[in-house]
């Protein structure tokens, strides 16, 4: 296992990795700095400036309510990023814990848990999440545990198979013979070995959750107005894209470049660590 600096250098040496990392860095910077650099309040409507094309006063033009598209676009990723980050942490925490535990325990517990997880994966979670949102109203607080739970299911598979690669190795057997507790073995022997693949998986989960949040916002069930969000902006502007394409193009550019950037960077990172990158999980 190489150090962080060496890994970073490897990622930057690959053209796609460098592009991805730069895209992610730019997006992070924009998301953090947005509240200080936006020229207009994102929610303020201006009846005198409806659907204005891009100009020096409104860099990206204005939308159908006269709101400044530039300000809204800069702010539009923040809420979804926050939700994705918290949900991904939640998913990784319970998913990898359960995966490692069943891998170590084996036998009946392993079989029973995995059978239940198999069934859970077959359920279209987007429908259940939508249902909960419809019942509880769209709120960040409700989305995080829901997404964290449903996206943790695939983490269970990954953590389990990653841990299974090591449970039969000599150093784990040695620890068992020494009489170490299961907890110590999980923390001291297994975790350092599967940390890398879990970290890569966590970054992937983040991007899939981000897609899910944006899609929910697009359907009107994710980030609620007045907080601006790219998915919500695209849904809002779809009806008028024939006459005012600038209202829909910019959120699309920002959303796509963030997701592509994350994926390029994660691909290069996985390659640097020598890990097979995993595909998009079924339920996303």
């Amino acid at each position, binding site marked *: 296992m190489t150090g962080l600096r060496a890994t970073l250098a490897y990622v930057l040496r690959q053209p796609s990795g460098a592009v991805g990392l730069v895209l992610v860095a730019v997006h992070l910077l924009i998301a953090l700095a947005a509240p200080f650099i936006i020229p207009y309040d994102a929610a303020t409507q201006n009846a005198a400036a409806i659907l204005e094309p891009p100009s020096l006063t409104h860099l990206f033009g204005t939308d159908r309510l006269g709101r400044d598209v530039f300000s809204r676009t800069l702010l539009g990723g923040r809420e979804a990023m926050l939700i994705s980050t918290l949900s991904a942490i939640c998913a990784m925490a319970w998913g990898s814990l359960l995966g490692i535990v069943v891998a170590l325990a084996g036998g009946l517990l392993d079989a029973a848990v995995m059978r239940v997880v198999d069934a859970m994966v077959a*359920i279209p979670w987007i*429908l259940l999440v939508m249902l909960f949102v419809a019942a509880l109203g769209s709120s960040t607080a409700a989305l995080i545990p829901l997404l964290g739970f449903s996206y943790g299911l695939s983490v269970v598979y990954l953590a389990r198979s990653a841990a299974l690669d090591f449970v039969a190795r000599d150093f784990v057997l040695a620890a068992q013979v020494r009489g170490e507790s299961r907890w110590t073995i999980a923390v001291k022997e297994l975790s350092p070995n599967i940390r890398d693949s879990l970290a890569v998986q966590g970054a992937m989960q983040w991007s899939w959750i981000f897609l899910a949040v944006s*899609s929910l916002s697009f359907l009107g069930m994710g980030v609620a107005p007045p907080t601006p969000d790219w998915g919500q902006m695209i849904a809002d502007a779809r009806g008028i894209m024939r006459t005012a394409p600038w209202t*829909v193009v910019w959120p699309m550019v920002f959303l796509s470049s963030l997701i592509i950037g*994350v994926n390029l960077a994660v691909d290069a990172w996985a390659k640097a660590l020598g890990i097979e990158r995993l*595909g*998009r999980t*079924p339920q996303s």
Partner: protein
Amino acid sequence: MLGLIVRRAASSLFTLILISVVVFAGLEFMPGDACTAHLGRDGKGAVLEACRARMGLDAPPVKRFTQWAGDILRGELGTSMQREKPITEIVGWRLRNTLVLSAVAALIGIPLAVLLGIIAGLRRDRLFDMAASGTALVAMTIPEFVSATLLILVFAVGLGWTAGVVTIGYKAPLLEMVSAAFLPAVVLSMVLAAHIMRMVRASVIDVLKSDFVLMARLKGVPQQQIIWRHVVPNSLLPVISVIGLTVAWLLGGVVIVESVFNYPGLGRLAVDAVGDRDLPLVQAIALLFGITYVVTNLMTDIAALLLNPRLRTYRA
């Protein structure tokens, strides 16, 4: 062989039972029930009691579950709250439309993906591979609602070739439905094709490194024959079971894509049902999606077992 298939089918059956329990229990954990959701603010006092009695919600959960599951086994999916019609009636045509959409997407996506994957794998790290793999990465990462909006922007708004949204009714004849499904299917097949292409490519690269390909080379088999007789068939085998998994993905995408294109299928019905807080309908659709996923996976696994004798020695 037969034993393996029976075991696989039994585990699918078990999965189906678990799915029905989860779909049922998911709603039990929610605050309120089908009646409070449907009635909204009016849901109190006698009205609520009447609704609960009508829907049989006053019975204990276990009894309601057996009732619900028994109805499903008889082919009855319950009654929609909003539409006040049997769900089977509402769902039937739309299920056909969604199947048409998925079939068109699979017909576009899978052959394209297999072809591109083989070529990219054979020419690893050359220009074609880099272009195809790069495109695949973009195609599989961009959310469906963005690519759909982009396609509408280019083909409907820009070029004026097609209508942006589907305007035909949900009972339209099959042929009209197929042509209406084209643009939505392109969006769905992009994600599908990108994922399968990456799998095929990786699999081709794996097989090229195998001993039997080296053996064929050493005994002087011509390159074309190595590729078409040895590499391609062997690299497609592992992909078969992956195709089953991507169906789940297709189903998730269907919800979004149908809403964007206003396509009259199950996915849009699901969004409408959620909007109407029609819990029995959402429950039924979630169950249908789960069944589709399990059945497709069972079929692809059996196909893989039939086509690939090596899998038969492993315990399922």
